């Protein structure tokens, strides 16, 4: 765990760069983290990010399948918005922990 400055604010992040204190998150931080992933956030991105944050607040575990059934975005579009590893990338931008797949 370490502290870094994102969008002018000191925040706590883990070794993989995920924020460890969601309360520190704000939209400017989200925008800057998106930039680090070479993404420019559109209103569609923000809708997905808000959905992820709501699920996180509700302590509801996230999975690709769940996103597909969310009614917010289908999996195909989710991949278009956040290419490669969309759940990981979107979670990082949203300031929530990396979704833990059950093992």
């Amino acid at each position, binding site marked *: 765990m370490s502290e870094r400055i994102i969008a002018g604010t000191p925040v706590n992040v883990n070794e993989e760069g995920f924020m460890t204190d969601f309360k520190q998150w704000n939209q400017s931080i989200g925008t800057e983290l998106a930039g680090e992933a070479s993404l420019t956030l559109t209103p569609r991105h923000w809708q997905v990010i808000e959905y992820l944050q709501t699920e996180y607040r509700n302590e509801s575990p996230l999975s690709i399948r769940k996103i597909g059934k969310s009614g917010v975005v289908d999996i195909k579009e989710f*991949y278009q918005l956040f290419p*490669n590893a969309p759940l990981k990338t979107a979670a990082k931008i949203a300031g929530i922990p990396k979704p833990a797949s*059950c*093992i």
Partner: protein
Amino acid sequence: MKRLLILGAGTAGTMMANHLHHHLSADEWEIDIIDEETEHYYQPGFLFLPFDIYEPEDIVKPIRQFIPQGVNLIQESIDRIVPAEQYVLMEGGDRLRYDILIVATGAKIAPEEVPGMLGKEWKQSIFDFYTFEGALALRNKLREWEGGKLVVHITEMPIKCPVAPLEFAFLADSFFRNKHMRDRVDITFVTPLSGAFTKPKATAALEHLLDEKHIHIESDFAIEQVDADNKTIIDYGGRTVPFDLLVTVPTNKGDAVIERSGMGDDLNFVPTNKATLQSKEWPNIFVLGDATNIAASKAGSVAHFEAEILTENILRFMDNQPLKEEFDGHANCFVETGNGKALLIDFNYTHEPVEGTFPFPGVGPLRLLKESRINHMGKLAFRWIYWNMLLKGTHIPFVSATMQEAGKDFD
């Protein structure tokens, strides 16, 4: 007379029948266990069957053999559970009222969840090894397969025994080496996870082994469809992996009876308190083994540890005492790595697998997260332990239901 009803006579249900039969007075409690099947499979054996290491008769025995005298085995199908009225509706129309219900209905593969998976190539060039029939068909295929691109694939998490697909890849490497055809086989491990496993230290150890065995890994691969005509799997991002032989672990779902009963989540797993194993919705329903939605491995060792804790909680529930919040997600798994070796991992909800010694701190004889022959002997010996001790609810000496922290190298 009160009735305790167990749904499912697999690993978890059978262990509960044995534990509770031992503790409950036959004058006060009737114990019934329902399963539509007649045969009990040693599921860890499904990993060995394709490679001709085990024979079918090593891994299948009659269910009845493991149900204690005095417990009533009902071999019929269930239509649904009606929790609000405390009965189970049988397919034949009978209603079985219960005072306490234990749901141990397990998990099953659902290949129909991925478009193109079930089709003309199913059991031709696309196989599962999570069913007896699948593992046997794959054995027959591997006996005559002449090589090409072998893709070992996980569809989505959670799955039963999350290390089994990796073990399959490791064993395939040894199998083809022994057949002097490894140079004609290209092995790729495709996973929706970001690495070989979900926990960092074990991932590092396992990825090192993949590399050593020249097994390629494609991570973060969320499959959208199988293109059976072009023998390719395609993910949502458009990434493709070609195969000549696809060994896939399809989506795992809870039993359809859970869906018909309206008691499951979107994968038919039952929302369960992760520490007490009580249903989140119905106080007199308890859930264990693969049927739960808890974030523990879907594995026999987990069911075994759960059964010890759940037995105590059911006795407490009968006595109107508060339940113990004791289950810690403890799992203990041998991971076959090929060439007669295995490694062992021991972990729980909060502690990832690390190096160390097991079960005696500082002594072993088993080493955690390190390949060794003795670990492999442990895995093979486990089949005997399973049939002769585990199912009968006999406590396994020196192995506690909750994880022990001594002897482990935490940072």
